[in-house]
């Protein structure tokens, strides 16, 4: 019997008793909160990993029954197809406003948004900042790959200086297009934010760190502390014109210089904040 069949708990063809997990160690299975729909993402894209992490978290906290996910416009526009929870497709940038209303009308719901950098940091910046300022009890999973993937690789508010995109063909120039927006740095001054962290999705170790951050961002909501946001430094191999492995290395070698990883705000377990190195910028004036 194959491991796959064992995971699915199906009996083998000759009707012998099914092999159970007592016999075969199940090391990998799809989270119960996810569907078996084939994902539409490009090869090497990290959306799949981040989706899986979200699914794991919903399972781990036992939230599926009362979760409402809010999906964005962008590459993850079909995210609702991959989760078993109820979901709302928001218009471009407005997921925090939609999530605000879903949560406010019934605080027993677990409400998360899943947004890209064009969605959250460009067209939806007002909704992002105000949801954070109000301390909405929502959890935002922010996928920052520094480019508009779905529309064909245009410059994003988080594109790096010098980054070539279809609307910055010679590379992004600060003089005319400004500097990349650091969402964690920007939001860290707002007292409504209970948890704020940035993590690269570039290695198994970092993915484990992402799980740790996501737990806190979810607890920020469940423990009624405020808004929780995890920013994932994500790849876009197709629009970056890199192999998936080169894209991962690009995050670790280059992207993190503009977007330093770490915990920016932690009002969930305030003690932890001292043990987790915070980027220098995050402290400036935040607790005057």
């Amino acid at each position, binding site marked *: 019997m194959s491991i796959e069949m064992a995971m699915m708990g199906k009996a083998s063809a000759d009707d012998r008793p099914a092999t159970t997990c007592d016999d075969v160690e199940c090391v990998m299975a799809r989270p119960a909160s996810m569907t078996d729909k084939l994902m539409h993402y490009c090869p090497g894209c990290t959306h799949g990993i981040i989706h899986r992490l979200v699914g794991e978290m919903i399972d781990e906290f036992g939230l*599926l*029954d*009362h*979760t*409402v996910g*809010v999906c964005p416009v962008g590459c993850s*526009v*079909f995210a*609702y197809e991959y*989760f*078993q*929870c*109820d*979901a*709302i*497709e*928001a*218009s471009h940038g*407005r997921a925090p*406003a*939609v*999530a*605000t*209303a*879903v949560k*406010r*009308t*019934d605080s*027993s*719901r*677990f409400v998360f948004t899943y947004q890209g950098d064009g969605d959250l940091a460009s067209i939806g910046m*007002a*909704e992002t*900042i*105000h949801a954070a300022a109000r301390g909405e009890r929502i959890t935002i999973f922010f996928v920052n790959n520094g480019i508009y993937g779905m529309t064909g690789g245009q410059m994003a508010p988080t594109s790096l200086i010098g980054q070539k995109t279809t609307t910055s063909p010679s590379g992004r120039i600060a003089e005319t297009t400004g500097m990349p927006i650091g969402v964690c740095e920007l939001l860290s001054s707002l007292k409504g934010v209970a948890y704020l962290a940035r993590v690269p999705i570039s290695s198994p170790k970092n993915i484990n760190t992402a799980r740790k951050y996501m737990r806190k961002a979810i607890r920020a909501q469940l423990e009624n502390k405020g808004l929780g946001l995890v920013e994932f430094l994500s790849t876009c191999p197709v629009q970056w014109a890199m192999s998936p492995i080169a894209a991962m290395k690009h995050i670790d070698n280059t992207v993190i210089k503009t977007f330093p990883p770490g915990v920016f705000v932690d009002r969930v377990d305030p003690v932890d904040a001292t043990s987790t190195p915070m980027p220098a910028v995050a402290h400036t004036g935040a607790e005057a």
Partner: protein
Amino acid sequence: MSATLEHPGAKNVAAESEPRGTEQVAGTKRLVKGNEALALGAVHGGLEAFFGYPITPQNEIPEILSGLLPSLGRVFLQAESEVASINMVYGASAAGHRTMTSSSSPGISLMMEGLSYIAGARLPCVIINVMRGGPGLGNIAPSQADYFQACKGGGHGDFHSLVLAPWNVQEMFELPALAFDLADRYRTPVFILADAVLGSMLEPAVVPDQIPPLRKVSKEWATVGRGRRAVKNVVNSLYLDPEVLSAHNETLQSTYREARREIRYDTRFTDDAEILLVAFGIAARVGLSAVRLLRKQGMRIGLLRPITLFPFPSDAIKHLAKQVRQTFVFELNSGQMVEDVRLAVNGISPVDFYGRMGGVLPGPEELAEQIRSRIGRGDSL
């Protein structure tokens, strides 16, 4: 359901679908401001969550609701913009709640994208537009220049909202409850089109003493959290397959056709009318005064006032167009509803138009003089 419909001569072609109990409830007649009536009417109609952004001349609505809704354990939130407001309405509606926003013309323009999503996702909600002069920043005086925006979709794509037009403070109180019922029944946004005069004026209205408890309307499609439901719910307006989107559009269009049974209008002095005046909202009140003036002078003129602007009472107007020599349309705009009147009349008899723009509300004498001087002049547009 509305006070005016009890008036002799008033007609209600939607008798088959009276939405809520017409039982008498204890109420007090008192002077009520139009905007206050809209706010109270919405709460009595089961409003659970309000989202809005300040703009004149409708500010009494959020001001009243900011105290009242939380005291009832319901949701009030001042949003960062009208864009956020309408998307909060989208979220609260998706989660199965009776929800509303209110604004005035420029703010409503900002909501048009969200409205299109709401219509596309077949979500019920109520949107109040206390219209002011435009375009652009315009002014804060009364106008009806947003008729097209409200009645012809407003946002992108093939969709409509149902549109209700009150003309007095009593209707300002009663129509929000009807709007919520219609919104839930047809899963569509419902507009209430008022204006700066109706919003700011005081008039006696009967408001029940007790706010009724919430009647939870069951919405099996709502994204409330999956619970024990066998399938997940998704609220969405994305259909990449053209055939699937086409079928979705057909569903929307058939909904609008079904909603024609909700058509409501009000008539005065039409039984013997040789001249017909068609006007809605505040313009219909000036119209009623003008009709009375002209009747005193011997003109057999009657008034038809659409209460539903979409769906439009085309059949009633067509019927009267066969009876009268001429139809006049009076609006506080450059001529918007007159297009629907012309489509209804379809050349049976001449249709003439008089309008004032920019926030000017002419007196009845001015309107009466315009009608008098145009009799027999025919179709001047």
